[in-house]
């Protein structure tokens, strides 16, 4: 038993990403088509050149037919996947393994979510018949429970922690303001964010990711032939996934100040990529900032900060756009909103732009230097105590 990974065996050769918006005038078909066409164009292929497709959508359509019909694919294998909010990443993971196995030469992952047709704000999970005893809480409520637990454990005064959380949101808004694909493009100061009323625990709406419709897509091929499609392929160094057993909701040993699924996922991802010291190799990260306490804790789970010290690194600006390790240079979920099936691929799209030097100048990172030339994307689904975690590590160089 081992997690061997597929380091440098497949490469992304084309990507597309729609603007993330409240697309009142676009449906699932429109969004998937737009992201796919951009990816086809980037790789210089047609839909017929792609041998197999993976569609990631949490609840905007069932079966591969959702994509086959939208793109009018003829006789292609199309698989719909769902893995909570890591659905888009899961589509890329399956497509990558299919190519690495030799089963197909060219595979495509398309993530899409049409959230804004529900008539409600926020994300609303598809109800599965149950005994009525499962907890009813918004995602904001669930993640907000991390803040008092963290403050208590590490002796950080709640007022200080609130400021740190606001700084995370402010940083992501700063980055998103420089991204035309982002939904929210207004900078927000720490003071403005701190002045907002709480909606769940100590979180205000500005501690929460928005909700948007959107789609993103990636085309993957074997690494050795990647240059036939583009001069600057992005190589997959690691794809790690952990599905928790939900024990955090049951086991008093879990203290709500970290996410064990993510710590395990990170260890596996670094091992797959052959990374001993993440700080010396990772030049940027796109992480799942669904709520500000999530990003706080992720800095520790991803080994970017020591336990109990992420809040200090955040305050020191280490994860800012111009910092040592920019986190969410595209603005993150905070600025983009969260079309569930698309978000994981949207993160990779930013890595694709930054690693290829294609990000616009006003949000281009300057942290890539020497061996520190890798990008990490982290995508989670579920809730503290009960989550799935995905991590990819990507790089523009082989080896």
């Amino acid at each position: 038993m081992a997690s061997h990974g597929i380091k440098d065996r497949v490469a992304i050769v084309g990507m597309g990403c729609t603007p993330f918006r409240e697309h009142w005038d676009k449906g699932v078909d429109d969004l998937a088509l737009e992201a796919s066409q951009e990816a086809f164009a980037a790789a210089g292929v047609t839909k017929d050149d792609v041998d197999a497709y993976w569609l990631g959508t949490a609840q905007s359509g069932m079966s591969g037919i959702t994509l086959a019909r939208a793109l009018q694919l003829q006789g292609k294998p199309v698989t719909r996947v769902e893995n909570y909010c890591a659905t888009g990443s899961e589509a890329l993971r399956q497509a990558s393994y299919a190519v690495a196995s030799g089963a197909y030469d060219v595979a495509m992952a398309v993530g899409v979510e049409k959230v804004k047709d529900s008539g409600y704000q926020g994300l609303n999970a598809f109800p599965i018949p149950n005994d009525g005893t499962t907890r009813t809480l918004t995602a904001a409520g669930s993640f907000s429970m991390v803040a008092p637990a963290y403050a208590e454990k590490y002796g950080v005064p709640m007022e200080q922690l609130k400021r740190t959380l606001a700084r995370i949101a402010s940083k992501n808004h700063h980055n998103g303001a420089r991204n035309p694909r982002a939904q929210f493009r207004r900078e927000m100061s720490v003071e403005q964010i701190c002045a907002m009323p709480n909606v769940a625990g100590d979180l205000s709406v500005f501690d929460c990711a928005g909700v948007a419709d959107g789609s993103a897509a990636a085309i993957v091929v074997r690494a050795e032939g990647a240059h036939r499609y583009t001069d600057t392929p992005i190589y997959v160094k690691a794809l790690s996934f952990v599905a928790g057993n939900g024990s955090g909701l049951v086991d008093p040993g879990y203290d709500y100040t970290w996410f064990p699924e993510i710590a395990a996922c990170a260890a596996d991802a670094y091992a797959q990529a052959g990374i001993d010291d993440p700080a010396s190799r990772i030049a940027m990260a796109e992480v799942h900032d669904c709520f500000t306490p999530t990003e706080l804790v992720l800095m520790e789970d991803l080994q970017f900060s020591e336990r109990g010290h992420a809040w200090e690194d955040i305050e020191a600006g280490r994860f800012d756009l111009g910092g040592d390790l920019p986190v969410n240079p595209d603005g993150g979920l905070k600025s983009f909103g969260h079309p569930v099936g698309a978000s994981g691929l949207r993160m990779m799209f930013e890595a694709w732009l930054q690693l290829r030097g294609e990000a616009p100048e006003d949000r281009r990172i300057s942290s890539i230097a020497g061996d520190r030339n890798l990008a990490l994307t982290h995508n989670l689904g579920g809730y503290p105590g009960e989550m799935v975690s995905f991590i990819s590590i990507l790089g523009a160089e082989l080896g």
Partner: protein
Amino acid sequence: MRGIISYGTYLPHRRLDRSTIAAVAGTGGGKGTRTVASYDEDTTTMAVEAARRTLRPTPARPDALWFSTVAPAYVDKANATAVHAALLLPTEAIAADLGGSVRSGIAALRLALGGSGTQLVVSADIRTGLPGSADEAAGGDAAAALLVGDDGDAPVIAELVGAGSATDEFLDRWRTPGDDRSKQWEEKFGETRYVPVALAALAAALADAGIDADRVDALVVAGLHGRACKAVAKRSGVDGAKVVDDLAATVGNPGAAQPGLLLASALDTAAPGQVIVLLTLSDGADALVFRTTDAIASFEPALSVAEQAAAGAPLPYGKFLAWRGHLTPEPPRRPEPARPSASAAARSEDWKYGFVGAKDRATGAIHLPPSRVSMEGGAVDDMEPIPMADVAGTIATYTIDKLVYSPSPPVVFAIVDFDGGGRAPIELTDVDPAAVRIGDRVEMTFRRLFTSDGIHNYFWKARPVAAPAKEA
């Protein structure tokens, strides 16, 4: 010897200050407070709480459960079965409703006292009326339970020594099924009918017991006709000082639950060898004469009526109206919850109704909800059931969710770690959101989470521990 083996009562946490009514309703109100069942309570959940407290001080277990209310959560479907499930009573124990009229409460008690075996008699009521009405102010919400049986499994603390009844058909108070208020004929008419039948029932019961009225140590007069109750007490021949306080100033009149509640109140302070008379006025009158035994000296009720009456927290009149369906505030703009699945609920009956988890026999790890596979060590189907409803816990972390759907936002939610092991993410109730802290102590309470498609979704919540644990 047959009589009462144990008893327990439940007063909901919230209190309506009657002086706040008139400012909104334009009329009505008065002095003092009344108890108010929470938005997540109904007569079934309150019955569960009173019944749990009744079984706590005694090892005796009933082989019959009779549940009486005039505000049933369901008709067609029995409500007593949910109480039976929450108490984890064996399948062989019968559980049924005796409902419809206020008189059903005392009738259930008479039947149990006249029957055999150990029988649990539970009554619960939620009383209200139109805004500003006398019934709205005078009513109260409560539940009471009495465990009736023979000296055997457990000692009788109050023996039945006499009984008398007088039945009379006349129209004093009535309600058509579906109406949310009752109506009353001119009060004086009812009084002319109630007083003579009540005195007759009392006389018959005292004669049955061979006791004179002046030997009565405590007289409970219960009934929704307040004026008649007072007149009967006055003319009963029992010294006015021995008439048990009807709790009108703090609790209000909880209808079908009033006889049980006031009898419990009398038992709370009774010494051995005392004579307690329960006289109820409802469509006639019924009188029961009890004599306390030596066993009452060592009987410790889970929580006395006086302790509960003195506790509680205020509820604004607007919330009272909303909770009783007389005011409809804007709900959160979130989807309403889906109805629970009958088959899924049946599969997890002990968990859903009894809060029974599973304990890994090898590692001791407690699983809430029960799991077939252990989270520690991975053993399969090697668990034993572990009832957790009476285990207190501590808040590990918490939140106040103003976004999520609730019949009465916001939702206060906590991760609760139970004493001796086990954790559950659980909603809090009867709590001031601003006062919740990590480390707070909580206990479990049976509640109605929501109603969807007419299905009441019952499960457990946690509330701040009602009273400090008594020193052993």
